[in-house]
């Protein structure tokens, strides 16, 4: 594969220039090497429309990135920068536009500074959550990281994609927990944001804004530059944690549960990640299917009596609440939370567990997402999530990959009920309702719900086509309700961005205006989140 408009000879000329910068070993162009840059969870796997790279180049320093970008600009060669490429479910290391050269930043993997007293770290893009966690453990630092469920991704990459984690509320929004970045612009210029804009300011990772417009957001889910350093705030190792569960009997209790939960989170009483499950209607990793429930939800609403009949005595909701901090404080927080939730008739409180940190090696090894004790709840990276889709006697077909839809919804129980009705009906219409898809409100951020909808990807191109069509339809169905994705696989980014339609898609037009000013040749990740340079807008969906 060649970049659009390139002859083999011209492409080889550019690759030779890249080799002169990074060395022969760090430019990849063989089919075997490029195989590793494919999106292994691609909904287009093996089809002509699968997004593929034409080559890859892996710099080891900021200076090398600058030189590569300048050459790409001279030759109008599109690059697709990525940090770790583990963004599985959202496109991995594959570009929006086939033919891009992957700008692989994994070699830039230094932890540049870590400060235990001020609780921050400054890293390069290739540093993974495992790298940072292991570094902290080896140095014996009393610090926590916040990591996503699969811990092999890059801090920088995940934050720039606005990924989330599972510890305390002010750390879980990974972009929100960053402080300061360094960016190579498309013309090769180097910019530092916030207090880093002043040489030797000493507070680059302490205060994020500096003065003037705050530009960091342009580089998240964007294509205006290559981020080469990022600072992140870390969490001081807490004394302890308490986890308790609120059990509510009725389906419509979700309204009161949500109202109380949201108030307690915004008060700062609950600071860990709340987690809803339902013994009746299922939750990832899944409870048994219930076709009767599907019918109830799909018909557009059922009475409380009908829901209760379905439950057969089982409670509808279990809300796990983690409190993280000093022992005396978390005990008081739990007591206060119980007082508030006790206003729901029939509510019970169960499964109280207490922790002291650091956990012992034995305790750490014993943590498991299958026991309601995800390692990620305690800032410990793992890969246990990859066991969820495995082929088991209960899930005989297993999965070859997953693509996600993740609409954001208002934090109300009424919205959850409506989401069940609307999304389940749509999924049933397309024949894809399954236990993992039972929409369950997730509380990654304290002021909204995220409905994570996983769709299994197979090796069967016909099945994948149906899955793509279903996902596309669900994007539209959700958008009609005002529920828009916060993040998306590359193949859906154009469709999703078009849903942000206020004033004739003014936001996208603004993005495009910026693109034309900052990157007129469109060399950085063309098409990322629907930001296409003017010259390439006809190449959408290549």
């Amino acid at each position, binding site marked *: 594969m060649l970049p659009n408009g390139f002859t083999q000879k011209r492409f080889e000329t550019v690759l030779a220039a890249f080799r002169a910068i990074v060395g022969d070993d760090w430019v990849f162009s063989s089919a*075997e*090497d490029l*195989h*590793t840059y494919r999106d292994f969870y691609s909904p287009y796997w093996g089809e002509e429309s699968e997004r593929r790279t034409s080559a890859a180049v892996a710099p080891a320093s900021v200076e090398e990135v600058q030189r590569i970008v300048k050459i790409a600009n001279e030759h109008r060669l599109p690059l697709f920068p990525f940090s770790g490429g583990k963004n599985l479910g959202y496109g991995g290391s594959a570009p929006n536009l086939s033919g891009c050269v992957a700008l692989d930043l994994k070699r830039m993997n230094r932890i540049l500074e870590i400060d235990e007293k001020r609780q921050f770290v400054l890293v390069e893009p290739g540093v993974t959550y*495992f790298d940072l966690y292991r570094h902290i453990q080896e140095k014996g630092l009393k610090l926590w990281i916040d990591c996503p469920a699969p811990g092999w991704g890059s801090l920088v990459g995940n934050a720039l994609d606005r990924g989330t984690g599972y510890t305390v509320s002010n750390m879980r929004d990974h972009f929100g927990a960053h402080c300061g970045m360094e960016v190579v612009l498309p013309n090769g210029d180097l910019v530092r944001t916030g207090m880093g804009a002043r040489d030797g300011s000493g507070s680059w990772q302490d205060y994020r804004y500096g003065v003037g417009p705050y530009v960091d957001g342009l580089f998240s889910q964007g294509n205006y530059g290559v981020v080469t350093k990022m600072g992140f705030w870390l969490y001081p190792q807490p004394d302890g944690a308490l986890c308790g569960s609120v059990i509510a009997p009725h389906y419509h209790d979700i309204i009161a549960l949500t109202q109380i939960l949201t108030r307690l989170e915004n008060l700062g009483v609950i600071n860990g990640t709340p987690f809803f499950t339902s013994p009746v209607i299922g939750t990832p990793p899944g409870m048994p299917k219930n076709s009767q429930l599907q019918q109830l939800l799909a018909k557009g609403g059922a009475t409380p009596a009908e829901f209760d009949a379905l439950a057969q005595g089982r409670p509808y909701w279990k809300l796990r609440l983690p409190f993280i901090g000093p022992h005396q404080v978390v005990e008081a927080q739990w007591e206060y939370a119980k007082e508030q939730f006790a206003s729901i008739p029939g509510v019970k409180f169960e499964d109280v567990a207490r922790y002291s940190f650091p956990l012992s090696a034995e305790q750490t*090894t014993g943590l498991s997402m299958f026991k309601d004790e995800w390692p990620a709840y305690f800032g410990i990276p793992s890969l246990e999530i990859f066991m969820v889709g*495995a082929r088991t*006697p209960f899930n005989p077909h297993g999965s*070859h990959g997953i693509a996600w839809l993740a609409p954001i919804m208002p934090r109300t129980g009424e919205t959850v009920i409506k989401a069940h009705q609307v999304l389940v009906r749509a999924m049933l219409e397309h024949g894809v309702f399954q236990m993992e898809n039972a929409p369950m409100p997730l509380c990654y951020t304290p002021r909204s719900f995220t409905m994570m909808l996983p769709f299994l990807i*197979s090796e069967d191109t016909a099945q994948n086509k149906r899955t793509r069509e279903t996902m596309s339809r669900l994007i539209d169905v959700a958008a009609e309700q005002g529920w828009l994705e916060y993040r998306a696989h590359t193949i859906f980014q154009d469709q999703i961005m078009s849903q942000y339609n206020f004033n004739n898609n003014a936001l996208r037009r603004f993005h495009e205006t910026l693109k034309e000013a900052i990157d007129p040749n469109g060399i950085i990740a063309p098409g990322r989140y629907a930001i296409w340079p003017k010259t390439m807008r006809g190449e959408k969906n290549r």
Partner: protein
Amino acid sequence: MDRRQFIGASLGVGVGAALLASACGVQAAPALRTHATLVYERQFPEAHRFAESGAAMGAAVLAFDGDVAQLWYEHLSGAVAGGVPIVGLGTQGLRFCIQTFCGADVRFVFHAHHAPQGLRQARVYRDLGRRDIDALSTLQWPEHVARIALRHTTLRNTAVTVERRAFAAVGDAEPGYLESWALVSRRNAITYG
């Protein structure tokens, strides 16, 4: 970092493979016939039998309990860096994660899907004789798969494209739920055995 390890994964520093025969309650055979490392998923009885057979052939045995990362950083990264072949029996996620960690310098020399009753599909980068296929279809398949997988780690193999996703059980109405596999570094596949 080696160039080929790099492009597939960010490798951590490993501590080397350890013989954990006690993990599955088996004793290694006194005569070492393979120096491969064997990984088995503890929750499956078939995997225990696979591990016991592998240990008897001299493989270093590692039990897997749910977090591949721990296994990788503490044991497998060092084994792979040292050119030690890795064989395994477990679910798809175990294989996918190990393969991704290994990077592009590995080759499958054996890969099969199994149902509790035996072989459902095999993809082997060497001719697998009828005798072996028949053996994998018997109730003793875990023992046979250990023998066959470990045997393949000692064969030369040079021309296999790395495939990272599970092979579909095409045309099989009841696909197996366990995978067995043997991964050998390309360098090793050429010179080993």
